[in-house]
């Protein structure tokens, strides 16, 4: 059992970080399907910079790249008033194309070995720390209350003297930092950057956030659940033990199917923030 615990935590960590990134954005009413792209941008930038300047600057660069995209999302949705979904899609396109371009242009193909990085356990600890901090932050700090207020009813929040645009800026800055960490975690774990290496993790994190009813702790648990699924899949693939005969594709589809069922309202009441996508 213990040989499943660590892989589960490692697989769940980028999901948790990304889900928390989604939390600070969506709780404030900003739909964010750009998590995938932000993670990807961070992973690519971190990989490129780490090789030359070491792990610390790599981490900073990764977080910076994700934050930049997150700010673009804020600008597009709050100032240009572009539909949140469209902005998110274009951020994913920018990141997918941009990382392909940058990595194709600036990486050294002759280089071998893992890129310099921080230890994976640091990120694992960080993921749980962030979850706890956001839970407490939402419950006990004025900013947390304001974030939830803006996400629930921006018009009333505005009447109460809260500026939704500013609150969402802070929320999206957090989103940028957290997706940045998630992206750096991915390259730290695998030691290389590969094209489209996030492979849908941003969407799975979003699924976890939805399954958790847009709450920190349940969302974190959902990520752990998805982590267990992947760990079990990797461990028992092709063996006869514990559902090894079930096709891997079915295992991989499970998080998505569960989320669709949850969105259909079959798993308890829906807890969607009512101000999601509104100005």
């Amino acid at each position: 059992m213990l040989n499943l615990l660590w892989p589960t935590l490692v697989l769940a960590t980028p999901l948790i970080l990304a889900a928390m990134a989604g939390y600070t954005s969506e709780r404030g009413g900003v739909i964010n399907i750009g998590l995938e792209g932000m993670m990807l941008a961070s992973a690519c930038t971190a990989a490129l910079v780490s090789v030359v300047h070491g792990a610390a600057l790599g981490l900073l660069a990764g977080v910076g790249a994700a934050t930049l995209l997150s700010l673009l999302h804020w600008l597009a949705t709050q100032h240009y008033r572009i539909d949140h979904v469209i902005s998110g899609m274009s951020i994913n396109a920018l990141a997918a194309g941009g990382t392909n371009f940058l990595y194709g242009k600036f990486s050294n193909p002759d280089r071998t070995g893992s890129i310099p990085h921080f230890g994976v356990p640091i990120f694992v600890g960080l993921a749980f720390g962030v979850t706890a901090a956001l839970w407490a932050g939402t419950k006990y700090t004025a900013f947390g209350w304001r974030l939830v207020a803006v996400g629930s009813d921006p018009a009333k929040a505005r009447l109460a003297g809260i500026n939704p645009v500013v609150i969402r800026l802070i929320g999206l800055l957090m989103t940028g930092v957290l997706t940045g960490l998630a992206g750096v975690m991915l390259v730290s774990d695998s030691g290389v950057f590969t094209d489209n290496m996030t492979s849908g993790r941003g969407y799975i994190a979003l699924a976890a956030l939805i399954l958790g009813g847009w709450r920190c702790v349940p969302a974190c648990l959902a990520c752990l659940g998805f982590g267990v699924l992947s760990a079990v899949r990797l461990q028992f693939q092709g063996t006869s033990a514990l559902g090894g005969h079930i096709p891997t594709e079915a295992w991989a589809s499970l998080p998505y199917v569960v989320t669709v069922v949850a969105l259909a309202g079959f798993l308890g009441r829906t807890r969607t923030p009512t101000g999601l996508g509104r100005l």
Partner: protein
Amino acid sequence: MSWKLGSLIVGAIGVLVLAIWASGVSPAEALGTLFRGTLGSPSAISGTLRETTPLLFTGLAVFLALRAGLFNIGVEGQFLIGAMIGSAFAIRFPGPFGITFALIGGAFGGAVWAAGPGWIKAYRHGHEVITTIMLNSVALYLTSYVVSGVIKDPAQQSAPTVNLAEASRLPWLVNAPPVQVSWALPLALVSTLGLAWWLKKTISGYELQAVGANPIAASYAGIDAPRMIFFAMLGSGAIAGFAGAIQVVAFEGRFYSGFSPGYGFDALGVALLAGNQAQAVIPAALLFGVLAKGGTALQIFGIPKGITTVFLGLIILIAAAIRYRKVIGGA
């Protein structure tokens, strides 16, 4: 045009010029390569038209949903399901009958794949964007599982299905290699005009757009808005599935894992750029077809293909800044 929009466009052009400059090629040279590789010779043009055809169909699928106020991000998945079912039918029943069957089956498959999100949106108020994104991944896994099992070529260890017999392929309209234009292109053009006519001249088309503009007002006008939303999603999925089946019988001649290079996502850009006129899908699809074909030309030139995806993202942003703005207090 406001200064906000102006600065957005200037910023976008700046990003592109910077990227081209970073790759050590002069922008003029890059543009020249792009032009020569897409519209510079008869064979290049025929390649561009080949890329345009699926974009036209999938763009139409996104466009239809958009008119009903829905973001069908699931076109990618519906396209894959349509292609899978289409190829299965075309392999099983050779000849013209098989082609017809494949196209109908593909459209049906796409509609089925869109039915869940449509129903959830219409009757359970679950956001169609999330459900369709999730089902895209499921479609990807499902098709790659099926193609490596039930419908794979028995002679092969893995991956693709058998190649279709010549009789099961859609004939060429122009066949003078290297120039080849499939009948799929006029079919796509006619479909576009047909959809434009339907939206403009029929009651049901009007009702669909009324729901898209304001579902509450449409309900007061006596339109069954949830039903309309459900059927708009079905229709959008059917077009996407049809596009997948067309892609099999007209161009690829087989189905394999990773069949779509992202037509469903490009289609979103096509439909957003087209705005609110169905005819406008045609030039928009052509532009994206040029980009898709041009990416390959640029790659040979030493500029990674990703730059065209960056361009796509910027186009979507600018088109949305012009057309898909929200008003304070609106839904």
